[in-house]
Structure formats: structure tokens, C-alpha cells
């Protein structure tokens, strides 16, 4: 039982943390929305083209990115591994996914349905969800 003392110390420390985490009021700053897994790209230097979807003011949390990305798996298979005719995502990098989505969004790359989906996201959201997909995809 040599480890016991230090464990208890840890435990007590943890109780403090848990007390904060379990309270109903939103936790204070440090525990607030987790930062994006990869640093959110700095707001793109004012894009020349007008009529862009407005970029959200607040950063996209990792959890919000996951919420967006999880929807992709309904067609592209669990974790982006597609068992059927729809292309898999697990073999793509975050950069690949993001640039494909942007090309679908602009119409530069023709599609059946992807253009209709990609138009639902800002460029920052596209990057955040692409990062998430790449981070959970099986190799």
C-alpha cells in the first residue's frame, strides 16, 4: 500500500476539480469550451470575394467541430470508413478534406450532393470539421 498516500493526495485534488465540473453553473474560464484540437486558423486575411458566409465571431470548440463532423459518417461510414459506393474519408488528410469541401462549396468541383452540404458551413467550420475527421479516422 505504498502508493496509497500519494493517490489520496491526488484524489483530494481531484475532488476539488470534480466539484467544479459537477456544478450546474458554467465552469469558469479554464474549463470553458475546449479549444479546437488544432489551433483554429486565424481569420483568413480578408478574402477578396464578397458575399461570403459570415465567419462566426467565437472560435469553434473541439466539441462543436465533432458535432459537425459526426454527421459526415452517416454517408461516409463510421469514422470515415465507407463500406459501400460513397468515398471513404479515412485516407484523406485534414487539408485534403478541407480543400475538397471548399471546392464543392464554390462549385469549382462538381458534385451530386456535396455542394449542397458544403454550402452549410463557413470556411472556418470546414477546417475545424476536417481536422476532427482526420483526427478520428482509422488509418
Amino acid at each position, binding site marked *: 500500500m505504498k502508493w496509497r498516500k500519494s493517490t489520496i493526495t491526488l484524489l483530494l485534488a481531484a475532488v476539488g476539480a470534480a466539484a467544479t465540473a459537477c456544478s450546474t453553473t458554467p465552469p469558469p474560464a479554464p474549463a470553458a469550451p475546449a479549444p479546437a484540437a488544432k489551433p483554429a486558423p486565424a481569420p483568413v486575411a480578408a478574402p477578396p470575394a464578397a458575399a461570403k458566409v459570415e465567419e462566426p465571431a467565437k472560435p469553434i470548440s473541439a466539441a462543436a467541430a465533432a458535432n459537425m463532423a459526426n454527421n459526415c459518417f*452517416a454517408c461516409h461510414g463510421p469514422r470515415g470508413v465507407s*463500406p459501400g*459506393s460513397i468515398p471513404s474519408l479515412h485516407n484523406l488528410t485534414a487539408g485534403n478534406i478541407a480543400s475538397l469541401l471548399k471546392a464543392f462549396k464554390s462549385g469549382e468541383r462538381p458534385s451530386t*450532393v456535396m455542394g449542397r452540404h458544403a454550402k452549410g458551413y463557413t470556411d472556418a467550420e470546414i477546417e475545424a470539421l476536417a481536422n476532427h475527421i482526420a483526427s478520428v479516422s482509422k488509418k
Partner: protein
Amino acid sequence: MSRITRRDFLKLAGATGTAAALGTFGLSARAAQGKGPRVVVIGGGFGGATCAKYLRGGDAGIAVTLVEPNLKFITCPFSNYVIGGFRTMQSITHGYDALRKKHGVNVVHDTVTAIDPAAKKVKLKSGKTLDYDRLVVSPGIDFKWDVIKGYDEKAAQVMPHAWKAGPQTVLLRKKLEAMKNGGTFILVAPPNPFRCPPGPYERASMVAHYLKQHKPKSKVLILDAKDSFSKQGLFMEGWKKLYGDMIEWVPGAKGGIVKAVNTKTMTVEGELDKYKGDVVNVIPPQSAGQIALKAGLADDKGWCPVDPKTFESKMHPGIHVIGDSSIAGTLPKSGFAANSEAKIAAAAIVAMLKGETVADASYVNTCYSLIAPNYGISVAGVYRITEKGIADVPGAGGVSPKEASEGFREDEAKYAVGWYASITADVWG
């Protein structure tokens, strides 16, 4: 210490066996006894099975029990292709082994007979009860029998609805096979809201696909309670191109509203006319699943109001209603939407159980329909939360283009099949 997550804390608490000392932390104490917070999920369909799996994926410390009466789930999606004659029942049947073995979900084959929101318990048909910290309710739909006079459960044996897949699907297929060449297939389409808005029109297409090959003198008559329907322009374009005038659609304003049926004479009574069918497929008006009604989760129209960000019930806190039973803004009652809602609800529940902030929600839907095996169309949408609840992101989504090339329709038919393979793997795999 700020870097010690609650999960680490639970591990540590478990390792030392000091549960009693931590008694004031309800969930944590239980976790310390080797059990995490308990979530019970009612229904192993698109919503429920997805939610169970993503809850476990979101936090393996949560004990998830899924209650579903059927040993195997037969999907409504693609059941129209069984009726069309190019898909087997076997190919639309899914089991719960992966949920059990791969994802550690406790799958119980039983039926929930009552929910006690105050005591946080559900009662099962077998007599057992289950305690929960949070409950997920995804029971699909039930039918409002006898709104169409004469159409009850017994009548459905003569005039199948086939709107819950299984024996009803097989029954309708058999009746279609037995129909004579030159016969009339009547499809009675329901009023809004109902499960799968394009479904009745895909069904009509599949019936026509079969009839064109085997009984080309026959007719498909759709008697509709509505004056318009999902992907209407695309369906009508496809019908004309592939089936000439085999399919006739009678909107509500022109006598399509059906008042009564008679299973002895095989007649359907509209507001203006009586119609006689050789096969009659009645899709009756619908409500949330019975258990949701019984538990007081529905409003007076029979559907369940929920918070758009968490799908937590507005009637009973601690209970999340997802899938067809819920009122989900402009999201349709589809398997795809149920899957999307389930993932958002699972993430919200994981956060709520940890006392963390619930992240912004984002929903997606794509409904493919086949007008023929190589002719597919789709409607898609991306959804966010506005002051009005869940709403389409303007500028995104919409339907396939009109007058598209054959290749485009073929691609969408191919993707429909791919979608089925993917989503069923996402739900039950």
C-alpha cells in the same frame, strides 16, 4: 490539479475503493463502485441504437442499457426496394451483436411499459425495472387507428400499411405479386407530419417499377391527404419519363382525402369519389411512439417538444426524445435525421453528466429516393439552431437538379445504396 479530468478522477476513485467517503458525489460514488452514470435508451432503431453507440464512444464510463423488443431490426429504409423486387428482407435486417461486443452496450430484449420521470425508473414488460440518470426515448412512430374509418390493426392485414418494416412489408409484396395484370394499386398517403416525407412517392415508384415489368396494364393511384409533397417536381419528372401515365396522383384539394375504407369490398372512400383497388396500401396518420404518449412526453398533437440543442424533453427534464417522435424544427422524420439527432443528444448527455458546457449543435439530413433501381434523386439539408428552433441553413441543401442527365440520376442511385451501407454500419456496426 487543474489538468485532472473527471475521468481521471473516476479512475482514481475506483482504484482506491473510497466510494463511501465520496458519498455526496452521486455519480462519482457510483463510478467508484465500478459503475458509471446510467443511461437507458428506449428503442434500438435509427435513433436509439446510434445514441447508445455514441454515448459509449463519447464516454466509456457510462453504463448504457438499450431496451428493444426485437432480436433483429428490419429497416424501413430500403424496404420499398423489397416491395419493388430487387432487395431481400435479409439484406435490410440488422442485429445487435456489434453494439454488445464492440461497443459494450447492454442490450436487453424487452419492452418498456412505463416511465417514472420523478423516480427515474423505467418498467419493463418482464417485470424488471431499470434506474437511470438520463433516459433516451426513440420509439419511432405509432398509428392513429380509425381516423380513417374502418382502418384499424385488423384492417392492416387486408390493406397493409408497410410503414413499419417487417411482416407488413412481406405482406404488401405478396399482394402485389398476386395482383392481376390490369389491376389498380391504391396508395393512401398520410397528412403531415409523418415518417419519411418522400417515402409514399418512392413506394409508388417501386410499385410501378415492378408493374411495368410484370403487369404493364396496371395502374397506381395515389390518394393524398396533402396538396404537395417532398421532391414533387423530381418524382413527377421521373414518373413521366419511366412510367408514362401509370401513376396518378390525386391531391387533397381534388378529392384525395380518404375518409373511410372497407376491407370487404376493397373500396376506399374519398371526399368526392369511391375507389376500388386490387391492392390497397393505407399509410395512416401518425403520432409519436405509444410509450412517449403514455409517459406524457407528447403535446396535444401527439409529438414530443424538445430543446433543440440537447433533445431534452420540454415536458420531463432528464429525458431526451429523439427520432421520429420528437418535434425537431425543419428536420424531417427520417432515419438520417434520427441518426444526426442521436449523435448530438449523445454528446450533450456526455457533457451534461460531466457538468460541462454543451457544445453547439449541427444537424444534417440527406434523403435519397429511387424512382427506378438506376434512377435516384435526393433532398439534403444542413441545420442549425435559430430563435425559431432547428432550421435550415439558408443557401445550403435543397433537391437534385431538374432535367439532370441520366448519368447524374445513376450516380445518385449508386450513392443511395452506398448511403444505406454506411448508415447501417454507423447505427448497428
